[in-house]
């Protein structure tokens, strides 16, 4: 890098305040080393990747020339408040502006746009961008999402501060989020993929419920690009949490077919079934055909139950053990269960024909002696429903007995699924 110590001092001197706002730089005149006017700053380009990424080049609108011209940031000699002056000979470095996939234009793609705050799990609008001068570099450090940012850009900040100080002896505070928590979104149709803020807290570390809220609030394009950026499991959980079935359908339809069926496999079977039932039939059939056989069979089974019956509410993810097995064996089996169980509150006990004969709890497994067979400590008095039972009656049962889960048995009392409190709560909240 050709920057001498001298110029760093110059930059520091010119800006006693090391922080500066993007809106302050935007539109500043650009002059050559000899002071001849060249143009105005139209944008800054930042290369993503570092925790606080560096401004790599500036985009200049040159006088009497069309389009934007790019120049490396190293060519900036001095950033004083009236003009940006370039090094001698810098003008040869101008080239038409070009943005690569790991780069972002602050004005075109960030300022005034929506971003995801992955720390607060919220969407904010960028009112200004906070930059920091570190050595010879300009680094992107904060996003300003407060009213101060708007007022500053309107040029009313001093008036506002004077007014609030005089009236209330108070000053409206800055509202900033560190860049490391910011996930920028794409700005238009041109680029289909999300520019992931790679060094940041990853977007799928946000809780799926919050992700679902964020996705519901975003517009169509950003919505599907955020959804595409999620790994399968997060995508499946997020999809479960999205409450508008129309939106669920739109999201799953926006995903490529093989990914869509993978996501459906990851979802709880009852949720996946509900979603498939909302899809156009042809599409649903096609997705089911590409699913793995076990998942497909479960969903095909669940699809046969009418809406508003116990069968439509139930999931087939439950944990059942034969009644002659010992506690130790049950624990072993529990350990081997790989699929995510929706409810582990109850351990269901079945006879050799799969008929439900009793229920035990996880607590029993943990505290009892390992060699006791389950039939000795199970509770044989249990309440169950058939898949054809009316959903309202199921709700009443939950209300009355405060169950965490309710087993569903067929006419021969074979355990076919369970209904969890979560499923019921979802039903109730949606009413």
């Amino acid at each position: 890098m050709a920057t001498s110590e001298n110029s760093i001092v110059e930059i520091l001197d010119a800006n006693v305040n090391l922080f500066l706002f993007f809106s302050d730089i935007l539109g500043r005149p650009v002059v050559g080393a000899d002071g001849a006017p060249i143009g105005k700053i139209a944008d800054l380009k930042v290369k993503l990747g570092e925790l606080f990424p560096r401004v790599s080049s500036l985009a200049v609108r040159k006088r009497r020339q069309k389009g934007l011209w790019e120049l490396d940031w190293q060519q900036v000699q001095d950033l004083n408040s009236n003009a940006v002056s370039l090094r001698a000979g810098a003008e040869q470095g101008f080239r038409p502006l070009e943005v690569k996939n790991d780069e972002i234009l602050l004005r075109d793609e960030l300022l005034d746009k929506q971003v995801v705050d992955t720390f607060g799990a919220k969407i904010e609008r960028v009112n200004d961008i906070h930059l920091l001068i570190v050595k010879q570099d300009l680094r992107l450090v904060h996003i300003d999402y407060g009213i101060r940012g708007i007022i500053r850009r309107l040029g009313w900040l001093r008036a506002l501060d004077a007014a609030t100080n005089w009236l209330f002896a108070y000053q409206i505070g800055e509202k900033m989020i560190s860049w490391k928590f910011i996930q920028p979104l794409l700005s238009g149709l041109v680029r289909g993929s999300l520019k992931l803020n790679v060094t940041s807290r990853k977007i799928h570390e946000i809780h799926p419920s919050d992700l679902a809220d964020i996705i519901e609030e975003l517009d169509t394009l950003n919505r599907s690009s955020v959804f595409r950026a999620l790994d399968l499991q997060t995508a499946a959980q997020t999809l479960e949490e999205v409450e508008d079935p129309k939106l669920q359908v739109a999201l799953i339809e926006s995903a490529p077919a093989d990914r869509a069926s993978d996501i459906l496999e990851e979802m709880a079977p009852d949720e996946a079934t509900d979603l498939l039932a909302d899809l156009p039939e042809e599409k649903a059939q096609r997705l089911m055909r590409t699913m793995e056989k076990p998942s497909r069979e479960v969903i095909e089974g669940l699809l046969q139950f009418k809406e508003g019956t116990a069968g439509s509410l139930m999931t087939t993810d439950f944990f059942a053990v034969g009644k002659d097995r010992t506690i130790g064996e049950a624990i072993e089996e529990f350990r081997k269960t790989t699929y995510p169980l929706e409810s582990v509150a109850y351990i269901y006990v079945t006879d050799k024909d799969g008929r439900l004969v009793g229920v035990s709890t996880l607590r029993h497994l943990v505290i009892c002696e390992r060699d006791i067979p389950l039939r000795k400590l199970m509770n044989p008095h249990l309440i169950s429903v058939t898949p054809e039972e009316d959903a309202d009656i199921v709700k009443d049962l939950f209300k009355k007995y405060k169950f965490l889960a309710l087993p569903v048995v067929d006419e021969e009392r074979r355990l076919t699924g369970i209904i969890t409190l979560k499923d019921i709560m979802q039903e109730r909240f949606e009413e």
Partner: protein
Amino acid sequence: MADGILNAEPVRKRSRWKGLLLFLAVAGPGIITSNVDNDAGGIATYSMAGAHFGTNLLWSLIPIMVALIIIQEMSARMGVVTGKGLSDLIRERFGVKITVSLLFALILTNFGNVIAEFAGVASSLEIFHVPKYVSVPLAAAVVWLIVVKGNYRSVEKIFLWACVFYVTYIVAGFLAKPDWTAVGHTLIAPSFKMSSESLGMIIGLVGTTIAPWMQFYLQAAVVEKNIALKDYKHCRLDVIVGSFVVTIVAGFIVLTCAATLFKTGIRVETAADAALALAPLAGKYCSALFAFGLLNASLFAASILPLSTAFVVCEGMGWEAGVNKKFSEAPQFYGLYSVLIFFGAAIILIPGIPLFPVMYISQVLNGLLLPVILVFMLLLINNKKLMGAYTGKRAYNVISWTTVGVLVVLSVVYLGSLLGI
């Protein structure tokens, strides 16, 4: 495979409290927007057109309808393609300064409109002998509570009924026994005899039918509805039907006044004047229907205008918005919404308040704002980066630029006439 199940209608309703706009969208954003458009100010203008010019200006409603369809189609298309509201797009594209000034102007014009709606409530209920000191606070409280405390389904029912009640104007039109042959004649062979007075009236009709807030509201409603691109044609149909309905209702208002007030040479300035004047001419039922229609329209618009204003402003500024949020979560949203309703109603209650200047300023701002917003809309809808393949086709662009051009000229002329230049 359980074919029957996949075909089965999903019985479980899973709609959520996601903005009042969402439920409105279910009934059709285009239809609702158009119906709100026939508000107190609109009814007054149509009444005046009928009372002062008879059926002579009836033809002008048809080109106005075409312009309305063209403008609204752009809003709907932008909403479907980008999934963003108009204030959002303007903010992202044109920056903070322009957005803040536009929103400021929008708040002022909409505030003027809200006052007009409460004036409509007051004057229509005065016909039924309810003093305004009772009717206006009650109306404001009802409107405020509907949104803040209302249950979604009950609100939906209320608003759908509000749309149905516009039928009263059609019934009133038949009760007034218009001369149908004359109506047919003016529509088939319109007379373009232009006086400065009739030109002024036409400009007034355009101004009241195509208002700035509609563009924001319609686009927001379309976005809330999450309409998929492949369903866009339904959305467009909704816009066309809505514009058609608004024209039919407007036409019947003109007819009613033409058949009665114009014949006897009675001049009116407000919709309530017209309702009162109708009683001796067309019978008390016709008069009552007219007044009831005005009450319905005013209440309907008084509910939607403050809500849509609060939504649009919060969207542009990046503040939380939505009736499903608590006051502490969305203070700006509720604050603005409440202030618009509270002051809108309070101004009407000031004894001896001259309403004309308020309406006048609001109309002037409307006229100033409309051309600006239309130009922004055209710039946005032709932005490839934003609209991709859904920018306007060339022929269509010629039509829309021409329409906007004509509207801009008319707004400027209208503005000039308002300011007495």
